[in-house]
């Protein structure tokens, strides 16, 4: 019998957990194929150099070596350059060739130079060291702003000033706003480069089936369908002969939403050798060869009236794109960034110039939040500085400028139309949970004793649930942004749900099963969610931009509704009743008032699958397929508050409290939503306090391993206090918004502002992130007039 308890909204235990807690995760590196060889990639030790020669003769003589291949050989075999799949219109974007393996020139430390294939990984690695590459070094640029300057070395000869694009967003009367302002505050804001650090390094396993002319590629990807499409454009293998499988993927955070060179390399090698080949990156290799995030420098100004009413915001922003354009590079610092500069506020005039710049560094693309954390940090920072300039409480200033509640769309100056929002209740709830007034009093008492206690508040709104395909096309995204689902009942009444999205740790194998269970009255554990295999699932555009649930749930609901309709027809036929007299409730189709004689959905599934007696005009089988293209993006929002205390002697930050109130609409599984928020907060706090990728002026990554890149640890963090409000969106049938990135978007400015608030009595307004003790101590020391 079916459950009568609603599965929607319950903290259902995750269906994916049993395999992970017992060591049976199906991660790509855990897979092997008979006759499999191993690939190791020879990478450039120079940030910019001509390749004069590659001598593989020594490597080829080493034990177990099967082959060594160059980029030239790959190109000759018909393998093309890596595509940039998002070219923002009206920005004069330059898309220089990005060969999967460098042919004439290397452009960053870690750029692929050759592929070494051997029987074991150790043999391939030994041989990789024996590949003798002769380089002629060239000039190097690493800083985006400097790279556009006169005389800077060119990363690509055909891209003057290293300027990939100049994109502009403008809304309202910006010049007038600044002329009329009582107060203008300016600041240079650096969103430093971050390394995503999904715990699972990237890996690929390619198998070539020469009899069928087909390739199967297992890959650590958030976008198997896009990868299949792009592989078909860049390799000689047509799309219907490519199967891409992303088995269990150990976190992505955007770092696995690129189509990567190693995917093409492994297909090339497997086809060349006629045997399967696997490549798994080391963590140090991941730091060089997997995309980085953020890396913006922005000169920002905010204009306001003396009463705190914000009149305008403008910025000149330099976005470091690295040496080549990754799959989604150009959309991140533009569409996902500039359009969100209104944040949660009424800002009538906004202007941003974004300069996308090539440098001799690892390609930069989407990392959790992707453009929105940078925008939110800029806006929140400027609001904070304005509050200080006007001697206003930062909460009062925010409240004054918050967008009023809206249920039917709200257009901001950048042209976006937010779906729904009600920002003040989230702010009020967070203030109450935090005990804001009392905390400010305690802060005043602590300050009186010379203690540096600080409180930071962020009221944010973000854009996610990407998005309407029409908008995708209009903003240059090289694909659609709809989603798909097939709900299939087997004769026994068990259900398979095939989706086009690719969850990689978020828990949709559970939440999607909850949706189906809730709608169709079956048990959650009777629903198996199939995803991330292009041969088993319908086309879909992948998991990123907190789109998986808001978009795919629309397709699931579409399929579910079809099955309810079809089930009603079949039940009416079997019950010899009129269709309009049959109702469906908790998994039972019955004539109104006689539920006991009704047919369970499992009965109907069996009847439809056997098809012994079907109503006229109804096809056999109990399966439905649906596609869903949302009418708008979704805009979650909320308020986060943090408290810190800074040790004036050491610059160390004691991270004491964190309150987060988020609104992502109706919640399918509160346990999973809280987990997403927790994880998101910590990645954002990591940017504020500990994380930062640093290059020397020769393009060497100085933070090249986990030894010198500080990933947050459990002991760095306080217990989080979470609250919620629920404002549904009309954009999808369930009213749900995304929640994967909210924590990251909100927490960086929240914690940063808390530290700046702590340092306020010393007159300090800025310390570049990450706020490591040394930097904080130097700022304190300087403010106190001390020497070094």
């Amino acid at each position, binding site marked *: 019998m079916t459950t009568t308890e609603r599965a929607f909204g319950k903290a259902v235990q995750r269906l994916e957990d049993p395999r*992970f807690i017992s060591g049976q995760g199906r991660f790509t590196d855990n897979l092997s194929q008979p006759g499999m060889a191993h690939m190791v990639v020879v990478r450039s030790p120079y940030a910019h150099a001509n390749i004069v020669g590659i001598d593989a003769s020594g490597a080829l003589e080493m034990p177990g070596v099967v082959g060594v291949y160059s980029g030239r050989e790959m190109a000759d075999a018909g393998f093309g350059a890596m595509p940039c799949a998002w070219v923002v219109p009206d920005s004069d974007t330059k898309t220089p060739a990005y060969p999967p393996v460098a042919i004439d020139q290397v452009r960053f430390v870690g750029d692929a130079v050759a592929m070494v294939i051997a029987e074991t990984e150790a043999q391939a690695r030994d041989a990789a060291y024996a590949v003798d590459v002769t380089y002629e070094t060239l000039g190097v640029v690493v800083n985006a702003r400097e790279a556009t300057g006169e005389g800077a070395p060119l990363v690509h000869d055909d891209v003057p000033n290293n300027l990939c694009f100049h994109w502009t967003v403008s809304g309202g009367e910006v010049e007038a706003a600044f002329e009329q302002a009582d107060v203008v505050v300016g600041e240079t804001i650096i969103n430093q480069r971050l390394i995503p650090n999904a715990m699972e390094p990237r890996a690929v396993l390619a198998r070539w089936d020469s009899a069928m002319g087909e390739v199967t590629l297992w890959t650590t990807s958030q976008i198997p369908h896009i990868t299949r499409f792009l592989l078909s454009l860049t390799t000689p293998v047509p799309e219907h002969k490519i199967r891409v499988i992303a088995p269990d993927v150990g976190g992505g955070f955007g770092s696995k939403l690129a189509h990567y060179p190693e995917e093409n390399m492994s297909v090339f090698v497997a086809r060349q050798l006629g045997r399967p080949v696997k490549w798994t990156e080391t963590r140090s290799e991941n730091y060089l060869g997997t995309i980085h995030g953020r890396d913006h420098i922005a000169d920002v100004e905010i204009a306001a009236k003396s009463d705190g009413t914000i009149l305008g915001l403008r910025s000149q922003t330099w976005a470091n794109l690295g040496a080549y354009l990754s799959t989604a590079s150009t959309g991140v610092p533009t569409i996902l960034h500039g359009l969100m500069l209104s944040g949660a506020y009424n800002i009538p005039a906004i202007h941003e110039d974004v300069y996308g710049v090539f440098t001799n560094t690892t390609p930069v693309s989407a990392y959790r939040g992707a453009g929105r954390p940078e925008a939110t940090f800029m806006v929140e920072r400027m609001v904070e500085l304005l509050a200080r300039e006007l001697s206003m409480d930062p909460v009062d200033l925010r409240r004054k400028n918050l967008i009023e509640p809206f249920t039917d769309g709200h257009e901001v100056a950048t042209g976006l139309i937010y779906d729904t929002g009600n920002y003040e209740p989230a702010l009020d709830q967070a203030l109450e949970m935090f005990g804001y007034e009392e905390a400010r009093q305690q802060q005043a008492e602590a300050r009186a004793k010379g203690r540096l206690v600080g409180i930071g508040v962020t009221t944010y709104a973000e854009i996610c649930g990407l998005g309407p395909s029409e908008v995708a096309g209009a903003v240059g995204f090289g694909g659609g942004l709809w989603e798909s689902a097939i709900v299939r009942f087997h004769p026994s009444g068990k259900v398979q749900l095939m989706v086009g999205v690719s969850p990689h740790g978020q828990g949709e194998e559970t939440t999607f099963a909850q949706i189906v269970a809730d709608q169709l009255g079956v048990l959650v554990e009777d629903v198996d969610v199939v995803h991330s295999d292009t041969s088993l699932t319908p086309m879909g555009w992948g998991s990123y931009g907190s789109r998986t649930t808001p978009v795919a749930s629309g397709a699931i609901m579409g399929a579910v509704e079809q099955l309810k309709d079809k089930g009603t027809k079949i039940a009416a036929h079997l019950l010899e009743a009129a269709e309009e007299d049959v109702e469906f409730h908790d998994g039972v189709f019955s004539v109104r008032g006689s539920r006991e004689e009704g047919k369970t959905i499992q009965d109907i599934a069996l009847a439809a699958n056997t098809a012994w007696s079907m109503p006229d005009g109804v096809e056999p089988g109990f399966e439905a397929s649906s596609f869903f293209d949302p009418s708008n993006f979704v805009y979650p929002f909320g308020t986060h508050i943090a408290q810190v205390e800074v040790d004036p002697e050491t610059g160390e930050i004691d991270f004491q409290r964190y309150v987060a109130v988020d609104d992502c609409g109706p919640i399918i599984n509160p346990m999973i939503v809280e987990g997403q928020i*927790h994880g998101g907060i910590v990645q954002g706090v990591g940017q504020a306090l500990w994380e930062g990728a640093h290059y020397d002026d020769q393009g060497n990554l100085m933070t090249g391993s986990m030894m010198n890149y500080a990933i947050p640890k459990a002991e760095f963090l306080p217990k989080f206090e979470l609250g919620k409000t629920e404002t549904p969106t009309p954009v999808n049938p369930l009213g749900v918004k995304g929640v994967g990135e909210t924590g990251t978007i909100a927490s960086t400015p929240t914690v940063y502002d808390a530290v700046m608030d702590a340092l306020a009595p010393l007159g300090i307004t800025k310390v570049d992130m990450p706020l490591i003790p040394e930097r904080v101590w130097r700022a304190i020391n300087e403010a106190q007039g001390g020497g070094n």
Partner: protein
Amino acid sequence: MEISIKINGKSYEGDVEPRTLLVDFIREDAGLTGTNVGCDTSQCGSCTVHMNGSAAKSCTVLAVQADGASITTIEGLATNGELHAMQQAFTEKHGLQCGFCTPGMIMAAVKLVESHPDIEEDDIRHGLEGNLCRCTGYENIVRAVAEGSRQFDPHSPWETEPAEHKITLREAERRARERSRT
């Protein structure tokens, strides 16, 4: 070099190079892929196993050093098909998302609570400093380990340390610092 390592009660013989890491022996020679490799500098702890009764990062041990040792991996933690209390606690408290760090995290947590049965939240956070997770923000891992410690069966087949070791980690460190001063 010929070695023999007992993993989850079963002996695995192998002819390995001196440089072969224990984790590679476990994953490739024994075919037990539940133990993951997340880094190459011994920071992440994904590869944590139990070696002769203690938690060890299997990427920092050479296979030849483990010759004759008794190893337990995540695959060997359940007994007679029953999940270990810590495995159960991780799913109940949502202490995992992508699941990649999870085996190492669970193996480290088992040893942590085994020697500190009444461990407090702060000490759990401190005790997990050798294990990185990028998904959960640790909040639910800490809850899971606390839950796992409450459910921990003292009669489990895993080694427990003598009672005098049952002090908080910070206390242990404090005593160690004192000893080093004198």
